[in-house]
């Protein structure tokens, strides 16, 4: 038994939920879409489960001129509409009692003065300085403004407590912009205070990759260039752009998914085992992978745009016919890259990334194809063939792992066909995965940065993607097309080596 004056707290042993220091969460953009659909429901669900810090307050900052009570009503409706569970009226009411609202524009000094007053009032009421988490759920152009004002008003530090700033992606739209943003951030905050959210990392599926790779000895010996032939990482969506034309047309598929989510999958797949699973040890290894990626050659990057086609048995418009899309838009709705990680483990193994809107099916997966056996003894007539083993890690829709291998077809002759050994996470665990935002908000309050993107990771991701964007911005040649509901453009086949095929979407 530890002496009580010593750390750690002797009461925490065996507790699944460890104490989190009393915290005030400040959401800039508190009336926005993300706050209403994701952040407020996530906070409610944490409250419902008793997972929030013992003492918790929430302050929303936004332009709309609302009294506290109107904001609480808006929050109540947003939670009722978007929460993954039916809210408990008593918990919701008690949570909303701890919610305050500060109206104003983000460049207005008076909101920071008011915010300072509200924060101090909470601290004084409790007799303890609360940790502060500023969540920037705003358009990216406000990040520098808000961070600058937090610094100017002395809100970036608090004696006896931690101050953290959570930033939503995108972290810039080009490399230089990302570097400028980080420089400005570091003029006010330490890197340890900055939590860059890529909500994809909060999904259980992504963390399962770490467990899959580093808790299972059987895969480690083959996880290298000697056994792996090639890798395909796919993030396909069956839907179009919906009502997001404004954002999507300025972003495109490469920025929307490849620069962040898919690069995260790539680094988790390729990283060396970290010494520990501490935030920096894990992120150090991911950054090494990014440093090892060779510049993507021009003919190793394919983009395309969808045209009208059929989806789920219905006719759907092409990208240029979508509401809000300029008729001369050259924004890519599909991107495929051939990437080379040039290090001891992966040299010579092509890693293919592809993502697109309005493809045949919604699926996110990593398919690792092993090299074929050196001698094909099983060529009996009637065999469907000895195919290379393929290990497929599916993130959605049915999270799981599947391994294909050759098995004998029953009968008197030795004929082979590939079969699958399947594992589905849903069949083996009782719990539902928490929403990614619930996990990430708790991690930010706890100060655990493992699932957040560090500055050098952001830079490394942009160093891979920025030259491709630059080339595409200069290229006014014909843009490849693919029909909505198809598997993507034929041009993507040119990335593959002879004998390789894209997995069916």
């Amino acid at each position, binding site marked *: 038994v530890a002496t009580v*004056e010593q750390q750690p707290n002797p009461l925490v042993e*065996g507790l699944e939920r460890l*104490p989190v220091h009393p915290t005030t969460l400040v959401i800039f953009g508190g009336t926005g879409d993300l706050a209403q659909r994701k952040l407020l429901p996530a906070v409610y669900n944490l409250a419902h489960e008793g997972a929030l810090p013992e003492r918790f307050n929430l302050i929303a900052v936004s332009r709309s001129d609302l009294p506290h009570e109107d904001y609480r009503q808006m929050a109540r409706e947003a939670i009722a509409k978007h929460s993954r569970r039916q809210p408990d009226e008593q918990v919701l*009411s*008690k949570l909303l009692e701890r919610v305050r609202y500060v109206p104003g524009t983000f460049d207005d000094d008076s909101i920071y003065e008011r915010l300072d007053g509200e924060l101090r009032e909470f601290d004084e009421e409790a007799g303890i300085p609360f940790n502060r988490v500023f969540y920037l759920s705003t358009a990216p152009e406000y990040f520098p403004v808000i961070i600058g004002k937090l610094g100017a008003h002395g809100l970036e530090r608090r004696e006896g407590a931690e101050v953290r700033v959570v930033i939503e992606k995108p972290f810039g739209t080009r490399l230089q912009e990302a570097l400028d943003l980080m420089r400005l951030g570091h003029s006010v905050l330490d890197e340890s205070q900055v939590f860059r959210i890529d909500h994809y990392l909060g999904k259980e599926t992504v963390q399962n990759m770490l467990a899959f790779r580093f808790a299972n000895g059987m895969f480690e010996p083959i996880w290298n260039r000697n056994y792996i032939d090639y890798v395909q990482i796919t993030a396909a969506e069956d839907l179009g752009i919906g009502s997001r034309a404004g954002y999507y047309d300025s972003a495109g598929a490469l920025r929307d998914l490849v620069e962040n989510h898919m690069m995260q999958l790539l680094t988790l797949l390729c990283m060396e085992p970290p010494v520990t699973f501490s935030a920096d040890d894990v992120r150090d290894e991911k950054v090494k992978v990014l440093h090892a990626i060779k510049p993507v050659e021009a003919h190793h990057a394919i983009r395309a745009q969808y045209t009208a086609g059929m989806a789920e048995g219905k006719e759907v418009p092409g990208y240029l016919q979508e509401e809000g899309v300029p008729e001369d838009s050259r924004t890519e709705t599909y991107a495929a890259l051939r990437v080379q990680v040039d290090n001891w483990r992966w040299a010579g193994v092509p890693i293919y990334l592809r993502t697109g809107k309005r493809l045949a099916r919604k699926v996110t997966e990593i398919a690792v194809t092993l090299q074929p056996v050196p001698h094909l003894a099983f060529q009996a007539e009637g065999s469907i063939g000895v195919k290379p083993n393929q290990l497929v890690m599916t993130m959605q829709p049915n999270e799981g792992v599947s391994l294909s291998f050759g098995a004998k077809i029953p009968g008197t002759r030795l004929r082979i066909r590939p079969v699958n050994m399947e594992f589905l996470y849903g069949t*083996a665990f009782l719990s539902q995965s928490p929403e990614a935002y619930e996990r990430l908000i708790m991690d930010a309050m706890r100060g655990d940065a493992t699932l957040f993107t560090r500055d050098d990771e952001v830079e490394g991701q942009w160093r891979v993607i920025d030259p491709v964007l630059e080339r595409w911005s200069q290229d006014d040649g014909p843009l490849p097309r693919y029909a909505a509901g198809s598997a993507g453009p034929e041009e993507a086949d040119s990335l593959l080596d002879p004998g390789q095929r894209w997995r069916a979407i």
Partner: protein
Amino acid sequence: MTAARGMWSERDTTPSAIEEALRELVKEHCGHDDAYAPARVLNLVVVVDRDWRGEIMNRLDRVGRYHPSRTILCAVEDGRTSIDATVAITAADDGTPKPGELALARERVVLDLGPRHLEKLDTIVDPLVVTDIATVVWSPHGHPEAVDALLHLSQVVLLDSVNEPDPGAAVARAKDLAEEAYVVDLAWLRSTPWRERVASTFDPLQWRPELGRISAVTVRHQPQSVVAGLLFMGWLAARLGWEPGSLVAANGSLRGNAHGRRQDVELRLESDAQMSVPGLAGVEIATASGMGISLYRGPGGLTARRSDRKGRESTWTVLGASRGESGILGEGIRQALLRDPAYRSALDRVETMVR
């Protein structure tokens, strides 16, 4: 024998016939329809009195996502000498897979049997459990001989010590079982939110030293939930290095002392007749330096109150929804796959309190 899609039943049957029926039903349900996959998380063997079978099945139905993947419910009926069985395959959630997604299939076996079967219940249940996944035994209506027979098949015993009228006997039984298997005690889980809150309350560095100055602890509990209160006390004693003595009954409460490192700690367990659901009603902790902490059930969570030596008071709500009895049972099933090292040491301390 009768059979319908996803269902089979037979009177005066045998374990091998039931096992064969299970295998066929799983193949029929999941092998022929790719939209279903059999859940493989844990086996739950439940031994109940025949008259209360429906009540227990209803409780299990309400645990939602924490439902075991294969449930074998043994309903004991006085005088019965033969075994009747029903096997059903059911889909999780609403049973209809969404396009492109899988639905989980679960299996439920209901055995009607007699007291004479209980001492050798393992020979009946053994062919029916899925191998290589955890097997949990729960016997909410007693039948200790059935639990003893099943111990070598199971890794986990689920029990609720608040059901035992004599706290001393409850603790002794829990300790015995803990020698043979991992014990998940619902009485312990009823104290979890309280333990989490007290750990949080003393977590800030400026208040952590107060843990060493605790001079009195009062726990209020539902009249039948004395063991839940004792386990909370035992947990504090184990974590803070107190040596508790026996508690004695006085004016409807249990009182005693624990020998702490700096001072003795006064312990009080008080029954709260107003409380209708099993578990704790409130906790009060006082320290030698004049600090007081109390936690009581309130709307939307626990109502917390802190007072300091100068008489300043602060009150707030620690947010959290009540889990209800089905939530507690679901949590018990979930905990069967985890390991909590704190229970055994708390139980050891409780043993000295009820001596």
